[in-house]
């Protein structure tokens, strides 16, 4: 009995350690997708964001042409800037991925916008996002949610 409890405890500890050390890196052909993260939202906020980096290790260009997630009605790539103390945001049709370059989606710039969240995003949960590229095809990644004030992923590479 005690042994079984201890085993259960060890197993739980092992899972906790394994998931804490988990970093989020994905490969899709020549594309490398790293450190996706999102930010927790408050109940009344209908929209969320996803950030990540995409490295194109190929000698040919590729393009991010579609984003989707079951957590929201719609997902789109947006760009934004704060210039002259004014915040501007606009829709970006696709993201060019030049050969040998890393494209970063990060706060105050390119981001995936989740429009019409079905429920608020809570810190420590993860949710799937599907990225579709012109040449490399599609991949579904797990995006961890960071706390409300987060400005970057908590588990770097």
């Amino acid at each position, binding site marked *: 009995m005690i042994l079984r409890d201890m085993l259960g405890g060890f197993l739980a500890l092992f899972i906790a350690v394994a998931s804490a050390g988990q970093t989020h890196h994905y490969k899709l052909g020549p594309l490398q997708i790293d450190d996706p993260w999102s*930010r927790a*939202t*408050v*109940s*009344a*906020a*209908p*929209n*969320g*964001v996803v950030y990540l980096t995409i490295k194109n290790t190929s000698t040919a260009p590729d393009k991010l042409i579609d984003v989707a997630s079951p957590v929201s009605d719609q997902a789109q790539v*947006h760009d*934004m800037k*704060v210039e*002259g*103390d*004014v*915040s*501007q*945001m*606009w*829709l970006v049709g696709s993201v060019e991925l030049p050969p040998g370059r890393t494209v970063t989606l990060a*706060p*105050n710039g390119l*981001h995936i*916008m989740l*429009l019409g969240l079905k429920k608020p995003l809570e810190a420590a949960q993860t949710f799937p996002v599907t990225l579709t590229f012109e040449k490399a095809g599609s991949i579904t990644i797990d995006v961890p949610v960071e706390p*409300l*004030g987060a*400005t970057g992923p908590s588990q770097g590479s």
Partner: protein
Amino acid sequence: MKRGLLLAGLVIAAAVFVTSVAVLLLEWRAHETGQTTAADIGGPFSLTDQDGKKVTDADYAGQWKLVFFGFTYCPEVCPTTLNRISLTLKALGPLADKLHPLFITVDPERDTPDVMKSYVSAFDKRITGLTGTPAEIDAVAKAYHAFYQKVPQGNDYTMDHSTLIYVMRPDGRYETLLRYDDSPAEMAEKLKPLLQQG
């Protein structure tokens, strides 16, 4: 005699004309360069608070205020600003009692009092959310020289908006600005000596 009056009239008319042109030019220059003088910022407003109550600037007289503009559909700047302001309130400790943050929506179409209430209270209950008719929002944004603009996006829209945080004195006059990229520690540092004044 008659000619004297006419001349005087002409002189006055010319003076009025020159002054008007000068004022217009100055306003235009201020607009072009994005500069406004301190005395220009703020003024009376009439809005609806998060409980659906009609309020004016007089309801917040006698308190230091942080006035800033945004909207609840905003994914980055607004939640970040609200989060920084809640952390600033915490950093100020008891001094925060002298400060009333007012978050005014630039998207009154979607931001009803109910939406504003659940949005701001998720950050800090000491922050008041204000909405109003499009005309009321337009008037208060103009009073604060805060830029905002509706930007169509497919069959939806988003808002471009000013990210400045206006620090207003208890008498309603403008004191200083906080910026979007100021950290909560920097904001608290700027506010402390002001709040200690009374």
